[in-house]
């Protein structure tokens, strides 16, 4: 397998972008990545998007976006793994290059979520759970994560305040990210007193509905070295991808995320790194409880101690392992298909030393974890600056 590096990143402001269509958001973002890489022509493109069909009634966006990006005739397609679609696009691009099939690939992600009502978005998102045996009975996504949270609290004594600590920290980081949808700070009391969505999760425990796109350009190391101007090269050195039962009730335990544990083990093995080597990480904090569980499954703290670990500020910038310096899904926003790509962008910026106010000093190795559904898909990338 050939070494693969990230040579360009592109991301525009996320939020309720009423004035821009799916294709405009994607093309502006992808073109920014192409310009950052200093290239003109792609060998191919993978676009992560969970449900353009339900959100804007448009399928077949691989061809649509390649055309509008001025990359006529390239091989391009959409890949889907619910909220892990972006991470899957990056993995596909990596494999395409690593095996020698292509030299320069764009991995992008996009979701246009505000062209439907709140009900429409809830419906589209719920398709990532078991339609006939969970959603049929009235389960929603916040509801499913709430049931996991309640189990985690029951088994390990995780507290309401510890859940809030995740939101407070991520909004603190997001307040320094000009591209974030909600770049403001929140307080513990603010989280706890906000509107209840699915007990015990309030609206400030949940990631928002977001329009947004993100893109990275990957290349084999030889091509990357030729193209590199001033940007330090960031290599992807480990990838782990795993799945689990889509329905929560089919899993022996609800207080863990087995697919994330397995994906993490695979990525650590491929890269030869351990949790102790990682300087900065982006986790899939679709709900506050998710970040706590991912911390445990990826080996950053003991099982059951994720809440305590977070409350003690270990995941803050300057802490043992800064998590979600970008603001995470909580503050930066969660245009589902774009999220996994944006995580790779934040880690690339951190490893390049371009983190600005959010920079983790001396970061050399970073990790991203992107998750679909209630954790039935999980993709971990480990990256290192050359």
């Amino acid at each position, binding site marked *: 397998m050939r070494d693969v590096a990230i040579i360009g990143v592109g991301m525009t402001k996320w939020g309720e972008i009423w004035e821009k269509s799916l294709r405009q958001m994607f093309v502006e973002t992808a073109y920014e990545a192409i310009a950052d890489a200093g290239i003109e022509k792609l060998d191919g493109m993978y676009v992560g998007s969970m449900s353009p069909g339900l959100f804007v009634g448009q399928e077949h966006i691989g061809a649509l976006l390649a055309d509008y990006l001025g990359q006529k005739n390239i091989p391009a397609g959409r890949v889907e793994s619910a909220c892990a679609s972006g991470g899957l696009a990056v993995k596909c691009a990596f494999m395409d290059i690593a095996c020698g099939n292509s030299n320069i690939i764009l991995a992008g992600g996009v979701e246009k979520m505000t062209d439907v009502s709140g009900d429409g978005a809830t419906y589209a998102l719920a398709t990532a759970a078991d339609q006939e045996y969970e959603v*049929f009975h009235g389960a929603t996504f916040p509801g499913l994560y709430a049931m996991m949270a309640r189990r985690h609290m029951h088994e390990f004594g995780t507290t309401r305040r510890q859940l809030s600590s995740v939101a407070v920290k991520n909004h603190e980081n997001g307040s320094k990210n000009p591209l974030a949808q909600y770049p403001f700070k929140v307080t513990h009391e603010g989280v706890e007193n906000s509107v209840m969505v699915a007990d015990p999760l309030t609206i400030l425990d949940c990631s928002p509905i977001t329009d947004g796109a993100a893109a990275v350009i990957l290349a084999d190391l030889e091509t990357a070295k030729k193209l590199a101007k001033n940007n330090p090269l960031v290599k992807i050195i480990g990838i782990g991808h795993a799945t689990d039962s889509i329905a929560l009730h089919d899993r022996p335990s609800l207080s863990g995320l087995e697919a994330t544990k397995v994906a993490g083990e695979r990525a650590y093995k491929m890269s030869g790194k351990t949790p102790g080597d990682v300087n900065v990480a982006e986790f899939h904090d679709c709900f506050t409880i998710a970040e706590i569980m991912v911390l445990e499954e990826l080996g950053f703290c003991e099982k059951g101690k994720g809440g305590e670990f977070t409350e003690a500020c270990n995941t803050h910038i300057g802490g043992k392992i800064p998590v979600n310096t970008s603001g995470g899904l909580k503050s930066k926003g969660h245009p589902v298909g774009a999220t996994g790509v944006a995580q790779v962008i934040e880690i690339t910026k951190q490893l390049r030393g371009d983190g600005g106010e959010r920079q983790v000093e001396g970061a050399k190795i970073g990790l991203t974890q992107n998750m679909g559904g209630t954790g039935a898909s999980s993709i971990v990338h480990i990256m290192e600056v050359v």
Partner: protein
Amino acid sequence: MFPARIWREFPQRYRLEAVKNKDTGEVYFPPRYVSKDGKKFNGEKYILPDEGKIFTYTVIEVPPSQFKDEAPYVVCIVELTDGTKLTCQITDFDKDWLDIGKKVRLEFRRVQTDAHHGVLSYGYKAVPAE
């Protein structure tokens, strides 16, 4: 949405029909076509016990459109007496009673009214059994 989609699920939703893997003793609800470790198996029809306890639950305050008139309502995962787990609503209970570990029984109830299907949908809901 065609009625066939809910009609197809009647054996599970109306009669709690599962499949038992005679080779391993495992119970699959809903039925599976190969075993959890990817093998062909000898299966037989198996009716789930209708009693169990609350494994976890949540109160849905922000519902999907087809449950608009019912919120807030409780969704839970029940662990049945044979160890099988399933997701359903809990109904006819006192607020103070609700907790992990409480005994429940599954009853035949209406689940959705004029949902996406355009027809009434029935199935199982949990009620207190203590």
